[in-house]
Structure formats: C-alpha cells, structure tokens
C-alpha cells in the first residue's frame, strides 16, 4: 500500500493534469463522473455507484483515484 504522502503526490499530479486538460475532458465526458489515476482517465460513468462498479471490475483501487464530475462546457457551477 502506498504511503499517505505518495498518495497525496499522486492526487496533486492528477488534479494538475485534470486542470490542464479540462477543456478537452469537458467536451468528451460532459455530465459524467470520471476516475483519474496516473494522469489517465481510468473509468467513466453516469453516476457514482456505476463508477465504483466499473473500478471494481477493472481491479482498480477506488481509494487511490481522483473522482470528478464533469460539468459541460456551456455550464458553470455556482455553489449556493
């Protein structure tokens, strides 16, 4: 099992990669939930339950992926 610090570094790299590629990702995965690991989208689904099933089927440890909901490019999120 990776250490907390290794997991944090991986999480930071995934977040940076997601931010750098978000325009392309928003076009391709609009309204989906995606899982990112090692700068790669390893699974996508319509909702969290479906995504967790896909990750389990692929033998990917769901605790080590960054999960993001993808807002379509013509939408913005304003938190209430």
């Amino acid at each position: 099992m990776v250490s907390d610090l290794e997991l944090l570094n991986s999480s930071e790299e995934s977040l940076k990669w997601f931010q750098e590629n978000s325009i392309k990702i928003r076009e391709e995965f609009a309204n989906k939930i995606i899982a990112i690991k090692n700068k790669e989208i390893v699974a996508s689904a319509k909702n969290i339950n479906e995504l967790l099933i896909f990750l389990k089927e692929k033998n990917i440890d769901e605790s080590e992926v960054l999960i993001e909901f993808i807002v379509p490019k013509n939408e913005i999120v304003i938190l209430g």
Partner: protein
Amino acid sequence: MKIKVFYDKDSKQLRVPVIVKIPHKRISSDFVIDTGSPHTILNYSNSLRLGVPHTEKAELIRLGGRAYQSYLFNRTEIVFKSEDNKEINEIISARILKPSSPKAEEIEMLDRCPNLLGIDFLEKGWKFFCNLEKDEVYFEKID
C-alpha cells in the same frame, strides 16, 4: 507551513488535493475552497466511498434551490501536503448531504456537488492568501 491551492482557470475554482481519512479507510480527493460555506462539506460520492454512516442529523442545507438534510461526521481527518512536501493533518466535523429520496435527479444533483472546504477550516488557525495574478494561492498556519 503552507498548503498550495490550485486555481482552475476553466471552472474558476480554487482546489486543494487531499486524502480524506476515517478510521480504517482513506480516499484520494480534492476540496473546492468555499469561504461562503460555514461548514466543510464532504460530498455524497465520497461519503459512499468511505462508508461514512449517515446517522447524526445536522442542519438542513440549501443548495441549488433545494433543501437537503445534512449529517455530521465528527472524525473526518483531512490530510494536506505542505509546500515542503510534508503531511499536514486536520480533524474536521464534516457535513454530508444525503438525498432525501431515491430519485435519480436528486442523486445526480448531489453527485455534482464537490467537496467544500468551508470557514470552519479557517477557524482552525489558518490564514488564506490569494493572488491569482501571480498564481500565489495558499493556506498558512497562524503562529
């Protein structure tokens, strides 16, 4: 001791990568900085990943024109990375929003809500510095 915050120019959100831990379980995730939120919110998806019990009722929280029952989880440990590559741990009483019905629309709405790092985090002795022009955004512990 500083924690770097990342500015997402596309979504115009400030995000910080973290590990969220409860006893016997941890997940990789990130929080959106929301100084408009009085409380730190752990989103529904992450509460499912962690297996957090939804038992202790807290406030009703309004989001997107709807009111959601929130549930309190007192032992949420959030692990941040400092700029000098060390772990920083904070224990927070996180609120979790739970759908009031199994309607797909409501679950979808909560799936879309990110984790929010609220004012209660700053109350733990952190100051928040934000200069977007110079890409200098961080939390720093008050001595």
